[in-house]
């Protein structure tokens, strides 16, 4: 029977991976991709209507297809979260008090009550999380980290004039993102090396003090190595005459193309449609309520 050892980390996450398929979505200007992502998030949060959310969900699925990402793979990323989503939904249904005296009670058991409102709230919650997860996955599949940091920096550039250190902050972000895979690999190597010397990282045995001390063989070298890397990076930057952000120009200049605007307009339209739908339904319900009285 194949034995899966406890040391293979980091292979399971679908979020945060860049899958270069060279699709139309991949080739869009990263600033626009960021804006589109932002619109998606705003629309998801602002839409209080299942139909609107269904629309956004379909939009994300279409996006995945356009980006040539296997739908099965993307949806499989939702699997590990299903138990928690279920728990969340149950919490929503039972634990959050229902609002409005006219909410119809569908089921009753001692103090627990299920109303159509709470079911709706749970459904909204599930739908929103589903869209967020898939949407943000889509974003990370289509955007490499360099694109991401360049995009953020260029979007924030206009603020630089107002004294906001956009350049410095996006450099911090670049460095952090650049070090993530390095540190992840180093963590894994440290874990294996210390385990080879009989280290047991204290999962669940002993008092707090003991357990913390057992984590030190992993955490201390990680920090020390990072500080060492930091020193080396500073030297390297200064050796290349890095003098700070004043007057720095960029190699990569972004120029917006018609397809970028197309993407932005489509996203904007979808967002407006979704929010509008939810507001319209709310309106219709409101009129109905007014009419009934």
């Amino acid at each position, binding site marked *: *029977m*194949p*034995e*899966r*050892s406890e*040391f*293979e980390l980091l*292979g*399971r996450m679908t979020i945060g991976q860049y*899958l270069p398929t060279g699709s139309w979505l991949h080739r869009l200007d990263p600033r626009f991709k960021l804006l589109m992502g932002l619109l998606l998030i705003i629309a998801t949060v602002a839409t209080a209507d299942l139909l609107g959310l269904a629309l956004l969900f379909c939009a994300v699925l279409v996006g995945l297809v356009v980006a040539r990402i*296997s739908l099965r*793979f993307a949806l499989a990323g939702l699997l590990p979260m299903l138990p928690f989503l279920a728990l969340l939904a149950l919490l929503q249904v039972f634990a959050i008090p229902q609002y409005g005296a006219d909410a119809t009670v569908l089921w009753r058991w001692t103090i627990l009550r299920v109303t159509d409102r709470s079911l709706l709230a749970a459904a909204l919650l599930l739908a929103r999380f589903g869209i967020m997860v898939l949407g943000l996955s889509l974003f990370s599949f289509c955007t490499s980290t360099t694109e991401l940091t360049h995009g953020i920096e260029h979007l924030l550039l206009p603020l630089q004039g107002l004294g906001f250190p956009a350049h410095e902050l996006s450099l911090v972000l670049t460095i952090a993102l650049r070090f993530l895979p390095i540190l992840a690999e*180093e963590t894994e*190597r*440290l874990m*294996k*090396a*210390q*385990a*080879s*010397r*009989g*280290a*047991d990282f204290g999962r669940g045995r002993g008092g707090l003090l003991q357990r913390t001390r057992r984590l*030190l*063989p992993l955490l*201390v*070298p990680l920090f*020390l*190595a990072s500080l060492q890397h930091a020193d080396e990076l500073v030297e390297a930057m200064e050796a290349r005459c890095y003098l700070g952000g004043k007057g720095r120009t960029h190699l990569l200049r972004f120029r917006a193309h018609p397809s970028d605007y197309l993407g932005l307009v489509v996203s904007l339209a979808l967002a407006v449609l979704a929010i509008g739908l939810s507001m319209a339904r709310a309106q219709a319900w409101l009129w109905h309520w007014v009419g009934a009285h």
Partner: protein
Amino acid sequence: MSASTNLLIEVRGLQHTYLPGTPLETQSLFGVDLEVHAGESVGIIGPTGSGKSTLLQHLNGLLRPQQGGVWVEGVSLADPQANLRSVRQKVGLVFQNPEDQLFERYAGDDVAFGPRNLGLPPAQVRELVRQAMQVVALPFEFKDRLTLELSQGQRRRLALAGVLALAPRVLVLDEPTAGLDPQGRQELLHALCAWRSHYGRAIVLASHNMEDVAELADRVFVLVAGRIVLSGPPRQVFAQPELLGSDGLGLPAPTQALQELRRLGYPVSSEVLTVAEAAAQIEALFHA
């Protein structure tokens, strides 16, 4: 399968795949066979990405065999009940750049980490640390020095001592001399030879530094793209340059030099492994 104490590690038909079931799935080992006997030094050479590190991590149970088997002194590592702690005491694995794993403020404490994890009494721990530091030629007084104040070469030897303090039967090393200056390299190889000279021990050395392998190994396995393509005594393996050259591997410099001389028509034997042997061959030319 064999319970003989002479056969320390046995690997049969080992296969391994990273991230199975994901779009990034890659197979790294395609049925590897290997044996390590007491008293011998086994060299595993192969280009980067050949699966050397993956193979090494199977030898002490960090990776469990997905297909095929690994046995350490007769104990199968595919068995979920296998006592990994005992395996990791018998098979000491030294990672590349082992000085990165030092975490204790004082050097002696870091060497003592391994034996202490085995739950040994302080007196025994002290003795193991003393012996280990002696093998790597670090004075025992260094135990009270700040770890970060030692030089890189000293820290690497300290990390090696940390594994030697477990008193393993097999020492498995991944690129032990990577990043060391010539003197550091010599000191490390010397320490390894000194350790190996004790009865019943074995060394497994994975490297793409041919000179290291030429100097230490009794038997060489050539690993390319997850498969063993060549194995045998080093002189035999290095005598097949065509095979090696096409796999992106080089030869030890002395061997290469003499093969060049042969090609130029000089009557020398190219079955040399070390600089000393090469020098002897060249010197013989002058006496002819």
